[in-house]
């Protein structure tokens, strides 16, 4: 059990990095069609999707590094909540069927990062150690 507890801040950082990269991928698909165009996103992007994509690329990059984790996570969590209610909730109430469980999971992982910080392996932790 002590071993598990010792690993918990490290696994938190891994969870943060993985979630941030998956989040960033959706922004890269919208902005740069990498690795492929986002299915369903119109070209050119309407303003609201452009803002969303910029938050996903910029916020995803900061969260991957673990820089300004709490602030970035708060903004990204809010973006995912907006995405769920503006897009997914309109195609039905059940997350597994409206394609929204992705958005819900990212929203809550980021919300938890607001409270927990970036974990052991993050630029934030590095800066704290240096100070």
């Amino acid at each position, binding site marked *: 059990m002590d071993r*598990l*507890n010792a*690993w*918990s801040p490290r*696994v*938190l950082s*891994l*969870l943060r990095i*993985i*979630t941030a990269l*998956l989040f960033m*991928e*959706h922004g890269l*698909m919208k902005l740069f069609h990498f*690795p*492929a165009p*986002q299915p369903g996103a119109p070209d050119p992007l309407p303003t609201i999707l452009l803002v969303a994509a910029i938050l996903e690329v910029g916020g995803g990059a900061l969260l991957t590094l673990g820089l300004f984790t*709490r602030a970035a996570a708060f903004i990204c969590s809010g973006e995912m909540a907006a995405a769920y209610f503006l897009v997914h909730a309109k195609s039905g109430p*059940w*997350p*597994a*069927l409206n394609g929204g*469980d*992705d958005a*819900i*999971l*990212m929203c*809550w*992982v980021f*919300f*938890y990062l*607001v*409270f*927990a910080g970036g974990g052991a392996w993050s630029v934030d932790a590095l800066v704290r150690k240096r100070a």
Partner: protein
Amino acid sequence: MTAGTRLALWRPRVLSLLRIIAALLFMEHGLIKHFHFPARHGAPVPLPPTLFIAATIEVIGGGLLALGLFTRPVAFLCAGEMAMAYFGFNNKIGPWPALNLGDVTILFCWIFLYLFCEGGGAWSLDALRRRLGRA
């Protein structure tokens, strides 16, 4: 009370909320496979054995994780199931998670792996058992 200590106070509670939400979403996928609730979606009828086992883990494991009972071992089992689902199913469609429908699977897998290390948080039957055991 400073903002920092307030965030720290709420951390184990928000962890429990993350656990409950993730567990219910996970359970929903099992209920869809086993009972076609809330709807039928994709899986063949009758379920092949691997999907039958997966759906059973999703319903029972999701139920236990939603309650926060035996969180660590159950989370480990569910994380393993999600890893197998990713490599056995999503990864065969293609390498990019946003395109092979695998990012939900990956998120479940890592959230559960984190719960295995961290436990179920403040609002869980495990925490209640610990408190009653001490009293």
